[in-house]
């Protein structure tokens, strides 16, 4: 394992990084404003670019959360997509409840798919989701509790490395199979869609879109600050030490299980937030989000950007997804080769990712 997490002194490079981040943040923040300019204006930003950037910001939060688990605690989770999707489903349930009687079937309480499947009343686990605060609580609580249970079981038995990775992958696979079922009460393979409003705002307005965009941006900035605070604290140093030599840290008297558990749960909660912000922006959530391929794609964002550096995770999410968006329209057959090639390239030649490349230049 590398030592990239060693905090640099507040050198010029670090100041440059901070300035770069601030500029990037401001540029992103300007996007919805520029979107309001007339289409002919040279600085106009298209609707497509704004909406896709909003998605990427959510992905960046997911990458950040994964980096906290993998890059700092050494927990390679191949199931972070499950936490993302669970957060998304919690948000989706809230949005479904807000549709109210405006569904196709016009039922006062039940969402369309429940009417269609012959439900008589709302299942108990849907209760409370009409309340925004409760739904937001669930967005973090459901992934958090799942991570707590899974992590507690795994870390306590000292399951590490590839075993843990396979277990997390099996988890998201099992959840995908479960959510595909109609009788689970989560809409089966169609999932949730046709959302109408959030917090009293119709979702199809520019205001709502900009609001969600800014909410995601703020969440990303807050997650970044939180993670950088944590990773630079004493706790963060212990976490990195666990990553590099768990047995040694344990013999030094630290409870590595608790340390890892905290990081894993926090990471799952952040992933849940990312999913919750993602769903109203794309307007749909279905069990496909649980697919193991999604989780592993998130891993490659972090690996490409440079794991063990928070900026790297964000950079990776934006660059890989940018590449994906461009390639899937330019040469759709090529994308999977490029993605597969990225896995090979990064692991063999670029273990520190893009950030490592940039730093290598700077030094």
């Amino acid at each position, binding site marked *: 394992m590398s030592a990239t997490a060693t905090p640099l002194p507040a050198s010029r490079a670090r100041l440059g990084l901070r300035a770069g981040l601030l500029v990037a943040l401001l540029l992103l923040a300007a996007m919805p404003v520029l979107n309001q300019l007339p289409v002919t204006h040279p600085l106009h930003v298209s609707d497509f670019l704004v909406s896709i950037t909003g998605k990427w910001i959510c992905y960046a939060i997911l990458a950040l959360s994964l980096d906290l688990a993998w890059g700092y605690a050494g927990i*390679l989770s191949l199931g972070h997509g499950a936490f993302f999707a669970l957060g998304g489903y919690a948000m989706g349930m809230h949005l479904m409840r807000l549709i109210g009687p405006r569904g196709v079937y016009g039922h006062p309480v039940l969402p369309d798919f429940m009417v269609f499947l012959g439900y008589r009343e709302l299942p108990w686990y849907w209760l409370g989701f009409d309340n925004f605060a409760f739904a937001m609580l669930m967005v973090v609580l459901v992934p958090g509790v799942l991570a707590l249970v*899974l992590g507690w*079981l*795994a870390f*306590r*038995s*000292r*399951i*590490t*490395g*590839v*075993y843990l*990775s*396979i*277990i997390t*992958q*099996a*988890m998201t*696979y*099992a959840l995908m*199979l*479960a959510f*595909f*079922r109609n009788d689970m009460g989560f809409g089966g393979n169609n999932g949730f869609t046709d959302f109408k409003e959030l917090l009293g705002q119709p979702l199809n307005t520019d205001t709502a879109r900009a609001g969600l965009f800014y909410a995601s941006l703020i969440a990303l900035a807050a997650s970044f600050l939180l993670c950088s605070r944590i990773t630079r604290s004493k706790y963060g140093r212990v976490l990195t030490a666990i990553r590099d*030599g768990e*047995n040694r840290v344990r013999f030094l008297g630290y409870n590595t299980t608790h340390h890892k558990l905290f990081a894993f749960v926090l990471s799952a909660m952040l992933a849940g937030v990312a999913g919750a912000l993602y769903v109203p922006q794309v307007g749909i959530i279905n069990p496909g989000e649980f697919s*193991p391929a999604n989780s*592993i794609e998130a*891993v*490659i964002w972090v*690996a490409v950007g440079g794991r063990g550096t928070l900026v790297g995770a964000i950079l990776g999410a934006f660059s890989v997804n940018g590449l994906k968006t461009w390639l899937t329209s330019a040469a759709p*057959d090529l994308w*999977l*080769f490029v*993605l*597969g*090639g*990225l*896995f*090979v390239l*990064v*692991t*063999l030649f670029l*273990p520190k990712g893009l950030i490592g490349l940039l730093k290598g230049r700077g030094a």
Partner: protein
Amino acid sequence: MKHTLLAFLLLLAAALPARAQDAFVAALPGLAGNFNAQAEAVDRLGALADPRAIPVLRALADGRLLKLADNSLVIRDGTATTDVLTGAATEAAGTEVLRINNRVRVALRGALGRLQLVSPDPAERLAAAEAVFRSRSADNVPLLDAALARETVPRIRDRMAIALAASRLLASDPAAKLLGVEALGASSSPEARSVLLEARAANPDILPQIEAAVAAIDRRLAVRRAAETFFQGLSLGSVLLLAALGLAVTFGVMGVINMAHGEFVMLGAYTTFIVQEACRGIPWLLPWSLPLSVPAAFLVAAACGALMERGLIRHLYGRPLETLLMTFGVGMMIQQTVRLVFGAQNREVLSPPWMQGTLMLPFDIPVTQNRLWILAFSLVVLALTVAAIRFTRFGLEMRAVTQKRAIAASMGIRTGRVDALTFAFGSGIAGIAGVALSQIDNVSPNLGTGYIIDSFLVVVFGGVGSLAGTLVGAFGLGLVNKILEPWAGAVLAKVFVLIAAMIFIQRRPRGLFAQKGRAAEA
């Protein structure tokens, strides 16, 4: 004259009881009488269980039964006419079509239905037995008795016996009833069970016997269900074993986590397809394309494996997480290559004739032959793998390298070569698994993805590095899956198994067959 003689001999050969023959001849003139006489004659013919009555009654129903001046009957078939009794061709001149009314038609329908029990066509007899079973009536008992005495096909006999027993249950004679209950109780059909349950209300006097018969059927049905589940579990287990065996070598023995393993399986399946297409030009070779595919698939997958190990994986030894990600990427590229070359749709791999069909085991358990072959095949592959590791020079070197690389190297073993060969060996087994899977699964680019997680679970379940553990793990997972399926559904059963596997790994992180030793993780 010659024809007459022939027909006569045929009649003798049919070896009918003389009484029935007489009755058939005796009933015929009635058909030429008035409507009342016709209906009566039809009923009599219907009760005779004599196959000769079938064409006569059919002809009457279709208006093709003609009457000559002397009241003897002939059947018109197209332009030809034949005598009913002798079967000889006759002149059509001077005939009169026999007409029927509705009453006769109703009688005809019933008689023909019953007569089908003795039809020369087995399918018709089976259908008639079903029909008689459904429209149960005590009147059918003599008819069924007669039909049963003539029947030779075991499957139809069974159906007739059940129909007979069910009809006996409706007789007024208590002894016959008991006979029926007993016969039904000796079967293992769910229908016999429902007949018995229905009969409970009408027959309070023989209730204990009925209950006992139902219980006997239930026992037999339970045994059959259990045996069916068991076989399905074994079948799934054999598939898992094949898919996991290669992984047990690459992951279990070498410790290399290969996420592209499923893609090697898929490559094996496509090799089978290619070999089959190549064999199409040579007809006598086509049934043997599948056995030919086994070495071909092994070589293709092994070559890919060796290439991957030498080119990529060897640079990442000691970094399992990176290996995992890298191999996943390679798998992605292999999958996309196959998708571009062969298309995303399923390719059809035929089963050779000697693998098709269904086998009936005792208790009426249907077993598809190809699943049976795969079960045997998986065990053979396992035995060969064990033998290769235990008894060959290569196996010895492989074990030496995995146990202590430095010592093995100092003894002159070329460890790099052994690594490549071991990985190629494991990948080759994956290719062989692909040959088997091509028989029961769709040959498509994402064939392998469905098996990869299960395979890892099998290896982890069984204990890393233990082939015996892989065997137990595969069949254990297969059986658990199939036992859970009936009451949890296929998908939930899978979820349960995954959860159970997670909990199991908590309890025994080193699997069922943990290797003893003092190796500690770094």
